[in-house]
């Protein structure tokens, strides 16, 4: 296998809507930035992987064909990946495999998604209409019309089984990520909030409140992956040393043993750690980006990533372990709650964020890099059944 480096990052800010840009135009903007960052041009790209989560949201099937054409890449290999809110991670894994295997030398890995084109003329509630379209990606026979928030089932089962986290600990995640987002110019929400404000905001699914839930938005994000022999030092390469994905419907059985766990994240991270040789993520990682689709999910994720025992996530946020200035900052970008979210883009964005952190180019939100290693991971899908993890290293091995 060839070693694979990320040499380019291109991000657009998460916004509620980009009314003046089509999805292929957003893709062009992100691709331009990523290639410019890599010091490459479109002609250098030997294949592309597109992370486009949903067709319903953009009223377009096989959007990858239109994007590939729009970018002028016709005739070169292309592939679309869709895996719920974990799409971006699965796409990076696919792009990595293209390079590692020798199939391709320079891969443009691009996530784009519009969401708020979905409209409801009667109510004018675009976000509600978009969520409704999104629910079609749940199990339409055995989940709908109820279970539109699969994480909520995991969270109450987790709290019952492990006796935590508390409502205040969950709120603290939102406070941390919203504070982090203030330092991120690409973030959707850049106003800090207090624990009281979070707890007083509207309950959505107890114990989760509105301020503990990510917004749905629009964005595009890209990374450029190249084979080792093509890497130039001025590209400030960051190496992909571990990848993992895991399909595991977390709400199917929920036996006494497996209830309240986010199994796809456990499976994906263990696979990525194994490949990267990570045995103690608490000390061997400098920074983590994860999918805090809701605040409670971030606390459950800590255990799945091996940062604590199951049920101990609340203690970790209490002691500031994952704070911006803590031993292992989690979501310095602001995460999904602060930076923003749209399935398909978020995973590419998180990967780019870790690359920027490891390069020392994260500006105001730069965290200390000691071990030279970071983790981008994502979870999503029906039954919260999709997980991906990418270990990135400054120096590689």
């Amino acid at each position: 296998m060839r070693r694979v480096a990320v040499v380019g990052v291109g991000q657009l800010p998460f916004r509620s809507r980009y009314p003046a840009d089509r999805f292929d135009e957003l893709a062009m903007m992100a691709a331009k930035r990523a290639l410019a960052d890599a010091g490459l041009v479109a002609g250098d790209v030997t294949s592309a992987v597109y992370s486009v989560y949903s067709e319903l949201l953009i009223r377009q099937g096989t959007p990858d064909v239109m994007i590939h054409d729009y970018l002028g890449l016709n005739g070169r290999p292309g592939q679309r990946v869709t895996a719920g809110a974990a799409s971006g991670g699965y796409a990076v894994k696919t792009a990595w495999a293209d390079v590692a295997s020798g199939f391709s030398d320079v891969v443009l890995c691009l996530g784009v998604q519009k969401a708020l084109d979905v409209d409801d003329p009667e109510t004018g509630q675009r976000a509600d209409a978009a969520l409704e379209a999104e629910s079609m990606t749940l199990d339409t026979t055995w989940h709908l019309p109820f279970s539109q928030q699969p994480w909520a089932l995991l969270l109450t089962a987790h709290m019952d089984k492990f006796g935590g986290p508390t409502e205040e600990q969950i709120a603290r995640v939102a406070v941390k990520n919203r504070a982090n987002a203030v330092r991120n110019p690409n973030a959707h929400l850049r106003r800090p909030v207090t624990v009281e404000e979070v707890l007083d905001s509207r309950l959505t699914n107890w114990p989760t409140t509105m301020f503990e839930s990510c917004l749905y938005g629009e964005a595009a994000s890209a990374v450029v992956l190249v084979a080792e022999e093509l890497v130039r030092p001025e590209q400030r390469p960051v190496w992909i040393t571990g990848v993992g994905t895991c399909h595991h419907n977390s709400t199917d059985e929920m036996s006494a043993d497996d209830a309240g766990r986010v199994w796809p994240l456990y499976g994906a991270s263990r696979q990525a750690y194994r490949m990267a040789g990570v045995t103690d993520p608490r000390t061997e990682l400098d920074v983590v980006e994860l999918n805090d689709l809701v605040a409670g999910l971030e606390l459950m994720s800590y255990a799945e990533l091996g940062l604590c025992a199951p049920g101990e996530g609340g203690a970790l946020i209490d002691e500031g372990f994952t704070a911006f200035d803590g031993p292992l900052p989690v979501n310095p970008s602001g995460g999904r709650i602060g930076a923003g979210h749209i399935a398909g883009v978020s995973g590419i964005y998180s990967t780019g964020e870790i690359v920027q952190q490891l390069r020392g180019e994260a500006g105001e939100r730069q965290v200390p890099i000691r071990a030279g290693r970071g983790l981008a991971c994502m979870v999503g899908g029906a039954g919260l059944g999709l997980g991906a993890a990418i270990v990135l290293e400054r120096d590689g091995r």
Partner: protein
Amino acid sequence: MTTTGVDLPDDAVDADDWFEVPDELHYYYSYSYGGVSRFFREIVDNQRLTVTRCELCDRGYCPPRRDCPRCWERTTWQPHPGTGTVVAPVYCYWTQINSPVRRYVQPPFVYALVRLDGMTNALHTLIHTDDLRVNRTVRVGTRVEVRFREQRRGTLADVYFVPVEQP
């Protein structure tokens, strides 16, 4: 060059000359429930709950499965009394304005993963209770029993559960 996303790219300056067109997408489906058709037919016609069991490994399935995921063997049908236990509840205080669940209930409501007695997997379903806002008494371990709606058309929402005793 470090253009990694701190500033808006030159070409992302907001234009104000975009044109928006209203559009809509309608589809109608008549789809078969295939090997689990019996589950829905029994609910609609007879107000009876049926589940499947793998004779090789003795695992029971509700949601029913025609094939055992462990053995890849065909399962067989059994009647079920409709009693079970809440594995995970969700106290839902908000849902989309156009959510199809609003055909049956308005927030706040409880939905839950319910393991029917003797089953390996668990069913996503509504729990009818009237004290959600105050007490959230439906909890992990709450015993529940199936009920059938008057109007049944062959979907998961034709049944719901009610608590029968507390853990």
